[in-house]
């Protein structure tokens, strides 16, 4: 996380951070191959850090009805570098890359690609010009196979007929490069977990011979080990002279993988080309947010342990998780760590009543809960993992999304009270630093991180006694994260029990009183948060799969 002592977080994984940030290509034969593939090896390294400018933006402006999303952006990306884009939620990062990808068109300003003016009319044009993009929101077609998704729009075909074997082979090759040779190219994407989908997105980006690959928060849905894998791939790409624009809210990632950083704030470049490793966190944060954040995880007064609020016993869903037992007390924050796919979301959803358990019981305040209705009636709330598909009404205004689980509470005799709903929503919006603050806006127009705040905000409004949070900070910026953590703490201090799932181990450790570790559907470890450290958690999480190889 963005702890002020960023060194502690990033050192462990960081490679020797020489002034030369180009990594040595893995082998010379490969270098030839890359050249043959037209990857422009010579373009990559023509001197120490003085590689060719691939992309240059000057004074780029983009307006949406009512919003000036970009307001004079400057950006310069060089061949073979990882250029990080930083900025708060809504700063305009995704808008910027969508302009590069030909999805949006800039209203003003100039863009040049490899020295030539560049204004892609369509995604196709951008791709042809050598820009591949991994979007923030997954852009896959569920009913197509992995291979078909990877090559969608530029299929391997002869006379309109698919060359299925060739497609599969090329996909397999790319998946191999991505470290995932085990994903069957003909598997439907629908059946892949989120991380698997992210890999397919990356496979698609690699299926183009791109000079510039743009990645919009690729790590948001990835677990720890997957992020490492992602970085390995990025290093491989840059070693071939490919430029990467990397967006993430996790500052330690930026230190790990980034070469230079450009910071956006409110659609303007507030700092350009900062060295990724050496710029103090404090500076990055203040450039982004216009303020400094002293600490991220608020200090926790030893939690006054209340009575058991949630009691889960022997909960099982075949194929997903088995025999899960846990307790959350009033005023306690319990975190669950684990790999993506280890069954945490499923467990949370089953506790909430959204999935039917095959065995076991869930009690809240001693009463058995079997359905969502019962859960909500007993004061349980859940912020699900996938905001778009599971939580939001994109066309409805923010305030109605915020009150989705509580509007009956504001209603009188079945008649809703928009005024009170709006007020309440506005209060939460302020609490979470929602941008823009206008709660009548449709959620669709919010940036990803702000949408996430709406999802979490929903349960802050309600008279929630027990809050189930599934990846609550996914895509949320540093500043807002701090706010969100504070809110969670305040809730706990007020006697609310919190059960939190997060793929970011530091978040679990920093926020929770007690930590549960889940692996392959089993809760394998439990410890107070101050008696366990990140390495131990990671070892526990990974051990199974590393040692056993084949999943059960």
């Amino acid at each position, binding site marked *: 996380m963005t702890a002020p002592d960023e060194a502690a977080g990033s050192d462990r994984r960081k490679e020797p951070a020489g002034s030369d940030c180009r990594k040595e290509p893995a082998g010379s034969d490969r270098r030839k191959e890359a050249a043959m593939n037209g990857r422009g090896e010579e373009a990559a390294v023509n001197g120490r850090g003085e590689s060719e400018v691939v992309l240059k933006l000057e004074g780029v*402006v983009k*307006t949406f*009805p*009512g*919003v*000036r999303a970009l*307001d004079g952006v400057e950006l310069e990306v060089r061949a073979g570098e990882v250029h990080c884009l930083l900025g708060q939620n809504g700063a305009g990062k995704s808008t910027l890359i969508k302009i590069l990808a030909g999805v949006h068109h800039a*209203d*003003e300003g100039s863009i040049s690609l490899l020295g030539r003016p560049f204004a892609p009319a369509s995604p196709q044009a951008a791709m042809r010009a050598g820009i591949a993009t991994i979007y923030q929101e997954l852009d896959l077609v569920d009913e197509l196979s992995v291979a078909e998704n990877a090559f969608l729009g530029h299929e391997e075909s002869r006379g309109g007929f698919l060359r299925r074997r060739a497609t599969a082979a090329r996909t397999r090759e790319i998946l191999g490069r991505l470290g995932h040779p085990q994903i069957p190219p003909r598997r439907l994407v629908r059946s892949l977990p989120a991380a698997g989908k992210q890999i397919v997105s990356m496979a698609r980006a690699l299926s183009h011979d791109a000079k510039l690959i743009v990645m919009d928060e690729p790590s948001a849905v990835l677990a720890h080990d997957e992020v490492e894998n992602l970085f390995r791939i990025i290093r491989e790409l840059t070693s071939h002279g490919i430029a990467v624009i990397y967006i993430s809210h996790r500052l330690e990632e930026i230190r790990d993988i980034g070469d230079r950083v450009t910071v956006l704030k*409110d*659609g*303007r470049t507030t700092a350009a080309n900062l060295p990724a490793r050496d710029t103090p966190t404090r500076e990055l944060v*203040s450039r982004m*947010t*216009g*303020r*400094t*954040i*002293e600490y*991220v995880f*608020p*200090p926790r007064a030893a939690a006054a342990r209340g009575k058991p609020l949630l009691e889960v016993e022997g909960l099982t869903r075949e194929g997903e998780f088995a025999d899960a037992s846990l307790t959350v007390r009033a005023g306690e924050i319990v975190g669950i760590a684990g790999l993506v796919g280890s069954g945490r979301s499923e467990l949370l959803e089953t506790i*909430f009543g*959204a999935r039917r358990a095959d065995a076991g019981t869930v009690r809240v305040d001693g009463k058995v809960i079997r359905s*969502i209705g019962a859960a*909500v*009636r007993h004061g349980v709330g*859940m912020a699900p993992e996938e905001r778009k*598909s*599971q*939580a*939001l*009404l*994109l*066309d*409805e*205004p923010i305030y*109605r999304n915020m009150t*989705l*689980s509580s*509007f*009956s509470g504001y*209603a009188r005799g*079945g*008649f*809703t009270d928009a005024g009170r709903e709006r007020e309440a929503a506005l209060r939460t919006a*302020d*609490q979470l*630093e929602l*941008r*823009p*603050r*206008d709660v*009548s*806006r449709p959620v669709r127009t919010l940036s990803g991180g702000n949408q996430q705040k709406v999802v979490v905000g*929903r349960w802050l409004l309600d008279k929630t006694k027990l809050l189930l949070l599934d990846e609550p900070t996914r895509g949320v910026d540093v500043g807002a994260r*701090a*706010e969100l953590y*504070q809110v969670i*703490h305040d809730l706990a201090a007020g006697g609310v029990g919190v059960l939190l799932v997060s793929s970011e181990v530091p978040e679990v450790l920093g926020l929770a009183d007690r930590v549960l570790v889940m692996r392959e559907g089993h809760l394998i470890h439990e410890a107070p948060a101050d008696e366990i450290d990140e390495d131990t958690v990671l070892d526990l999480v990974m051990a199974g799969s590393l040692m056993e190889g084949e999943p059960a």
Partner: protein
Amino acid sequence: MTDQSTKPGVPAQSPPVDAGVAASLPRQSWWKSDGADPVRRNLGLVGVLVVLVIIGIVTRPELYGDAGWVTDNVWTILQQASAIGVVTVGMTFVIIGGGIDLSVGAIVAVAGVWSTTLATQSYGTAGMIFTAIVVGVVVGLINGVLISYGKLVPFIATLAMMVAARGLAAQISGKQTQVSSNTTINDIASTKILGIPMLVIILALVVAAGWVLLNRTTFGRRTVAVGGNVEAARLAGINVRLHTVLLYALSGLCCGIAAIMLTSQATSAQAAMANLYELDAIAAAIIGGTLLSGGRGTIIGALFGVLVFSTITNLFAINNLSTEVQNMVKGGIIVAAVLVQQFRYRSLTQLFGRKPTS
């Protein structure tokens, strides 16, 4: 925002710098706001209506010169719109809630035929109205249960119901037109209250009730939620299945009411009545701005949609267009009406939306 900074436990902040955000939010006039979107669309439909009336005036000035005739004509158009209008209100709810109801015409027919069998007529006015409404609601409930609990796609479930209910109506009626000899029912169509035809009053009441239900009640909010994102609605604690059942029952209720209205107008009911109402109702709802995929729609828009259709028919009638020309022109008008809505929307956005950037 500022009040937050003094709260205990909140990290010390340098003064919140959100001037930029404020700057990036040019003040929106209400007109351009998203809330005004349905109003803008409906204005488009009003524009279409105005154009249709103007065409009427131009083509038949002698008729439009007569004030009495014009008033009469307005009532005629509204009366012709009344039964289908009521059905469309129910349909709009179903569509907003993420479904579709192909059986509305058939439900009107069963309800109408059942309430006009000799046996039912013997129970008098109340018996007939009660029967029509109960039949409508029950058939709607069956639809809802098939969809909610049987997990059938709405299209298929209600298509099956459409076929079956028409069959049932034919069975009940012995394929004969059932003449209503109940004068109270028959008189509904000719009664005026304060100069306003009773059928129009019924339509107005149903539309008003529908509007309130959709926009001011928790039921309406649930409908939008269920249609907009079922999973989100479910995870927010809404009983999606029950709500779906209620939506189809509501549509059935509207069909029951419409059955009485139509029976009164035709002083009879028969198995083939309300033929293709499903298409008309869906089309009216969609022209009125309801999203076929659910989650968005307006009752007033749906009403305008119905009015556009019945005004077109009226225009054809006063100009004595032949059926085939009528149909060709109608296709064109439908397309034009929708294009006009879009045009207004976009042009307004362009006119007022983009201030020259500095």
